[in-house]
């Protein structure tokens, strides 16, 4: 490692390669939490996750534990900490708090917006600095909260761009695309969160989401098994196999197909991978979806909405959204070598049930704990992290494919080919900017 390289993380990132310490070094990881995860907007959850007053879900932002909850006045994002003696207030993943959060230790209770409601024994505070109106004796809300089309974000620091500006055109498109596909313009979350632990750095997951070269190699076995079963299914039943098989059989697409896609690098590291799946076949479900959208928005707008074909929108550093399949994966880094993903899917309000079933099939095959797809991704992530941890084999990670060849216009980089390593370069450009700020 070059002298003093860790003192200036910016030196770890070159235009076409990055130093392995970005992934494996514990001190770099702590800096990432401070400079990226506590300084940028982080996806918390969806408004419909907490439909009733008192409902809550807990999650992570950087090294903090946060609560998403619904009060009488809407949703709040609060630090999961009792200001009395510091106990975590919500221990479980989700639940309903009733009218107040009550600390299990000394029964300090808080309103659903975090403000102190009461303490059980009020004597003993005369002449002390304790003041029930002082915010430091209330649950602390996230420094900033923003909601875009029902998707709730928080930021654990003051200042910087507001949520809309920070998302920008590139990342807003994820939420616009998923919501616009509903004739009511809204989505509703399905109350099921699959959580998967990866023994690898969080950035390896993000890079993979935009990596159009890996599917036909990593998922070759699953793609072939699915393609074989499509034939078997047809032979034995005389019927067309369910669409789930096609989701997997797509992994057998040749390189040329993947190369024909485009990726787009937006500011703040947000990156988009174009769609490759034929999600607009002439089946009765799609046709009835078209009819519902035409009724709501008119034929021209319907066509515009359903012609939008993106596969992943990566909202850097915390979220990967698949709008046409109505699902997302939130990324929670737990350690340099440990990452939690929280995986959710959505119903399009007012859309035909078959559209939901399509989403459910993808959720099952790709995102459930029995997935035959991520099984091989996780294997690669672990192998990458293990390899990067080693000392002697080399220090740098190569992102040379099409480096310097991708055209930039109005701050947006468009890849020359689908398999360009542009997404990785775009994310690391943002990483460098975050990590160099204030140092």
């Amino acid at each position, binding site marked *: 490692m070059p002298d003093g390289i860790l003192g200036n993380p910016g030196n770890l990132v070159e235009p076409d390669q990055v130093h392995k310490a970005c992934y494996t070094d514990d001190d770099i990881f702590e800096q990432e939490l401070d400079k990226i995860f506590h300084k940028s907007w982080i996806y918390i959850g969806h408004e419909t996750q907490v439909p009733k007053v008192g409902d809550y879900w807990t999650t992570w932002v950087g090294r903090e534990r946060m609560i998403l909850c619904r009060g009488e006045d809407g949703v709040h994002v609060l630090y999961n900490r009792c200001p009395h003696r510091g106990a975590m207030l919500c221990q479980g*993943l989700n639940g309903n708090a009733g009218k107040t959060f009550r600390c299990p230790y000394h029964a300090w209770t808080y309103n659903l917006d975090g403000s102190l409601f009461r303490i059980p024994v009020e004597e003993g505070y005369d002449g002390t600095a304790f003041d029930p109106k002082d915010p430091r004796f209330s649950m602390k809300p996230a420094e900033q909260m923003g909601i875009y089309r029902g998707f709730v974000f928080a930021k654990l620091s003051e200042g910087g761009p507001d949520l809309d500006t920070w998302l920008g055109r590139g990342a807003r498109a994820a939420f616009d695309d998923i919501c616009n596909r509903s004739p009511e313009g809204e989505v509703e979350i*399905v109350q*099921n969160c*699959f*959580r*998967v*632990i990866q*023994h690898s750095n969080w950035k390896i997951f993000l890079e993979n989401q935009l990596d159009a070269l890996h599917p036909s190699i*990593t998922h*070759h*076995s*699953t793609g*072939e*098994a*699915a393609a*074989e*079963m499509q034939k*078997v*299914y047809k032979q*034995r039943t005389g019927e067309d*196999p369910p669409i789930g*098989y096609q989701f*997997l059989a797509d992994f057998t697409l040749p390189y040329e197909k993947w190369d024909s896609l485009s990726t787009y690098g937006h500011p703040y590291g947000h990156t988009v991978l174009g769609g490759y799946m034929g999600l607009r076949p002439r089946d009765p479900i799609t046709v009835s979806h078209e009819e519902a959208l035409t009724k709501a928005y008119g034929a021209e707008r319907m066509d515009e909405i359903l012609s939008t074909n993106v596969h992943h929108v990566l909202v850097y550093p915390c979220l990967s959204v698949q709008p046409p399949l109505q699902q997302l994966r939130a990324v929670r880094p737990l350690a340099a070598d440990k990452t*939690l993903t929280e995986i959710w*899917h959505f119903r399009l309000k007012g859309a035909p*049930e078959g559209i*939901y*079933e399509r989403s*459910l099939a993808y*959720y*099952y095959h790709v995102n*459930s*704990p*029995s*997935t*035959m797809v*991520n*099984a*091989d991704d*996780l*294997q*690669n992530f*672990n192998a990458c992290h293990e390899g990067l941890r080693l000392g002697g084999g080399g220090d740098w990670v190569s992102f040379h494919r099409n480096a310097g060849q991708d055209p930039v216009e109005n701050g947006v980089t468009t890849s020359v080919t689908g398999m360009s390593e542009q997404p990785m370069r775009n994310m690391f450009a943002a990483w460098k900017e975050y990590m160099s700020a204030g140092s």
Partner: protein
Amino acid sequence: MARDKKDKKAKKPKAKAKNHRANRRANGLDTQRAVEQFLYNQAEILDERRWDDWLGLFTKDGKYWMPPREDQETGEGMPNIFYEDLFLMDMRVRRVEHPYAHSQKPKNKMSHVIGNVVIESEDRKTGDVVARSKFHVVEFRNDNQRYFAGKYRHHLKKTKDGYKIRLQRVDIVSAEGPFDYVLQYWL
């Protein structure tokens, strides 16, 4: 040979044996034993990765189902950890045995122990059975050991070839926890 001798011996008190069998049947012990043997056999098939035998355990419309929550009452139209018919199971077998299934290099090994077998109901006419049981599974792969525990609920159809699974419901106690790497195939 030894068995033949034993059988001949056993034949002598004929009436007594018949009564004994009738009592066992009345007490459901034959069913109990048959279901236990079925479950042990299924566990062994899985531990030994005998995939054709595995697929043969199910009826044509049989399903293997692992819900993500214990209070979930159906697998249809709901998110599931597993919800597979014979076609999906066949696909999983093809994938697991594919030479490019990277996460099966090395392969995982499993060891099942089944117990607490309870016959919940037995249809007098058809002989079909609903049975509950508990399982403990150790899985080993690539120097790591994982542990699973939970309960099965088998809906078994009685056929001339023995029991076949119409529906196997699997509730693991850790269903709602985070999954440390994924389940390659059934537990």
